[in-house]
């Protein structure tokens, strides 16, 4: 079983958000992943994010492909719509859904196998299309459901549980996304909720595809010594370039004037993200320097995390397609069918 309903326990004292919903209201079925799985922490961060953002659950759609990560869409936001599709193809299904109904919040959950091997093409083209969605890659460097094969994100020299060493160069989704013109690129760690939640919030508010690569250790098959995606390795080698604080539109923005290191980026819906670079020269609005920084970290065997790049001025899929603001599913048929008179007239062209 991959989903077990949670018992309906009430916590009278639990806090409610602006919609009168508690954190529990944003939870889903019981996770069936291994105890300690990084993915469960990402799920918890998503629950926190949705609750804090006060999302209307039924206005969100959880999209996924196949794999441990893709299963997690059942474990949060049970009142939301969900689509667990086929392996590596979540991006195209989300593209279609978004084309049809642009007014839903699309939360795509994928993994390194789903997005970097079988679905690399779909990920790349969803980035190019700039589908308005949060795209989370729960990256553990390993195929968990099939018990421990290397994935395309495994680093050279990283060893499998059986002791085999990976010889092939890894695909880094962050570098890939930066190269392909992604307008929101971040990396985080499942064990760092403080960093992850604001990034997820900003990603959901972003107008376009927000790629969030989350190092999410696999306790069963890739958490040993020799792994570069383990809890220990990630904790030791994580370098946060820029810390994001998400400020929803409703709240008053108070930027400490003295803090020159804080950049404020206004999102599409008016909310703001306050980016505090830990290195004083880091510029998260500069694609080239973001790329260079990630490469530099790699060469030092460090993992660059944080909201690495954001460009809120890019066109999303609908802007590129020049679609009407009304979701296409809500355009009345009368507006879509040219009618008999038009067809009769058109027939003259074929004579």
């Amino acid at each position: 079983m991959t989903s077990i309903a949670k018992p309906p326990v009430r916590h009278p004292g639990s806090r409610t958000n602006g919609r009168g919903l508690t954190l529990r209201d944003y939870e889903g079925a019981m996770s069936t992943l291994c105890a300690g799985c990084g993915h469960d922490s990402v799920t918890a961060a998503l629950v926190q994010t949705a609750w804090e953002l006060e999302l209307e659950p039924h206005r969100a759609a959880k999209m996924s492909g196949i794999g441990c990560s893709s299963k997690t869409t059942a474990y949060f936001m049970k009142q939301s719509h969900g689509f667990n599709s086929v392996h590596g193809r979540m991006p195209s299904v989300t593209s279609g859904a978004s084309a049809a109904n642009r007014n839903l919040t699309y939360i795509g959950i994928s993994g390194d196998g789903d997005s970097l091997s079988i679905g690399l093409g779909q990920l790349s083209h969803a980035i190019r299309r700039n589908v308005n969605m949060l795209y989370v890659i729960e990256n553990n460097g390993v195929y968990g459901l099939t018990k421990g094969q290397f994935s395309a994100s495994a680093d050279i020299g990283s060893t499998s549980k059986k002791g085999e060493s990976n010889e092939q160069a890894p695909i880094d989704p962050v570098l890939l996304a930066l190269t392909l013109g992604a307008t929101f690129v971040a990396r985080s760690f499942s064990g760092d909720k403080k960093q992850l939640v604001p990034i997820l919030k900003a990603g959901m508010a972003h107008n376009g595809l927000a790629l969030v690569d989350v190092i999410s250790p696999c306790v069963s098959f890739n958490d040993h010594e020799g792994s570069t995606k383990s809890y220990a390795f990630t904790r030791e080698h994580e370098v946060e370039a820029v810390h994001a604080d998400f400020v929803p539109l409703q709240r008053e923005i108070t930027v400490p004037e003295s803090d020159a290191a804080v950049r404020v980026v206004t999102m599409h819906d008016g909310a703001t993200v306050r980016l505090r670079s830990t290195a004083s020269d880091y510029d998260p609005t500069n694609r080239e320097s973001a790329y260079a920084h990630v490469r530099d970290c790699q060469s030092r065997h460090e993992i660059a995390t944080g909201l690495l790049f954001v460009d809120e001025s890019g066109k999303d899929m609908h802007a590129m397609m020049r679609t009407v603001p009304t979701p296409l599913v809500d355009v009345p048929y009368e507006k879509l069918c040219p009618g008999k008179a038009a067809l009769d007239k058109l027939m003259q062209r074929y004579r």
Partner: protein
Amino acid sequence: MSGINDFAFKIGTVNGTGSASANGLLMQAIFRMGIPVTGKNIFPSNIQGLPTWYEIRVSKDGYTARPAAVDLVVALNPSTYARDVATVRPGGYLLYDSTWPLDPDLVREGITILGIPFGQLCVDAFEGDRDRTLLRNIAYAGSLAALLGIDMEIVGAMLTEKYGKKPKLLESNHKAIRLGFDYAHTHYTCPLPFHLETMDATRDSILMDGNTACALGALYAGATVGAWYPITPATALMEAFKAFCEKFRVDPETGLHNYAILQAEDEIAAAGIVIGAGWAGARAFTNTSGPGISLMQEFIGLAYYTDIPAVFFDVQRCGPATGMPTRTQQADLLSLAYASHGDTKHLVLFPANPHEAFEMAVTSFDLAERFQTPVFVASDLDIGMNDWMVKRLEWDDTYRPDRGKVLDATALEQVQRFSRYLDVDGDGIAARTLPGVGGKGAYFVRGSGHDKHAAYTEDSDAYQEVVDRLTRKFAHAATVMPRPEILVQDGADIGLVTIGGCDAAVREAADILRAQGIIVDVMRIRAFPFGVEVRDFLGTHERMFVIEQNRDAQLKSLLTIELGVAPASLTSILDYGGMPLTAQVVVGAVTAHPARVTA
């Protein structure tokens, strides 16, 4: 066999030299003379430099199948001279470009050879290589107008329509057409014994290709999302849809689009986009051909198993593999009917011509939403890319899309619990909700095993309950799919069974056979699953021929698998060389069969 308004001619040229517009001009002029006409473009999978032919058949009786014999061949491509001259019927004519000496390949006893120096005429009259090459085509059109008796006033008017806004082009085209026309008149007796005389038989008709017709159907059905990957011979379908949308679906005030066309990275993504959009509630479609259908298999199974509407236009071409992309076939029948792994069965529509393609395009969206399942429109290259003379398309403004069982927020208030795959009505169709709806409407689509509540399951009974419902749904669909078109003739003891674009040739064959004393009934199957009429027809004819355009008798297989018909009662007539079917193939096979005549 040939005579007034009853003959065929063929033009052999090199592709990429501009002959298509001249050929289209000829066909349209004949059509405007009120004479039934058909054109078949036999073109290479190439942009420039390979042989291409255009066959035009005129038939006062309205036959539109590809002609078996050609009365006049215009041979303008030296690389195919030998082949082209061989296709002229005995007693027929050959027209060649006499700028160059008569090629020995073109010499043949028993035919009349006409030479007109098209090349030289154009070199003398026009400047520049480009003009000289392009206008050579218009010059041969002019000569054909003289030889065949095409109304030059109509031709002139058409040139004016086409080039009215470009005076220089208009002048050179007029000049070229006269060059060819006058030369033929001066040097040969015009018109030839077989030629054209004005009729009034095309007033209610149009010339249209099936890709355009499908695109119009999608437009009128209210499709808003089109996703595709370019592939011959399906490309023009989405291009036509785009052009129609630009004309009819752009908000006049804002310039914004009431449609979304996504050119995907491959056919897999195109299928995913269509399924995502269908899930979200849009009428969505893709256009593809055999290789694309192969790539889409996994997604097709997902949509089948999760009850998501999706429309696939398969413009079939010659397979397997890359095959012959510019030749026609009906060889995807089995791969459409049973597309994807596991137990799957799909609704398939088989239009016979562009007129029916338009109607079936609309029907496909209704069926897809009503039955919440993939629907395929099995067109082919011949239907899709050739201009057919068909009745004008008609539209009934009272039409409203059949959106099927969709529960909105209000309807959800009436139900105790929403169970996505619960068969409340016993027809196999469970009500769905669209993402975005609140209340109890949210559910989780999963391609993995699920029960009637859409919850994950590995339980045998819960799993079987869902797939058995899909079987019921399919059986229910069989009762509402388009019925076969059946021709019954008194005294018939033979049944001809056919499908799709074979229709024109089979009907013509039935007439030829009757003239020979062989009376046949004809059933053209229009949809899968087969309805009761198909079963009845097969049950009431002892000897039947199944005529289809593939090697492996795929329609016959479907009939035997689905209806339990004894294979021995069905004799296959298979034509799979990639050309549109001719009546003579059918006549020949029926008359040659030892068991054909019982009367």
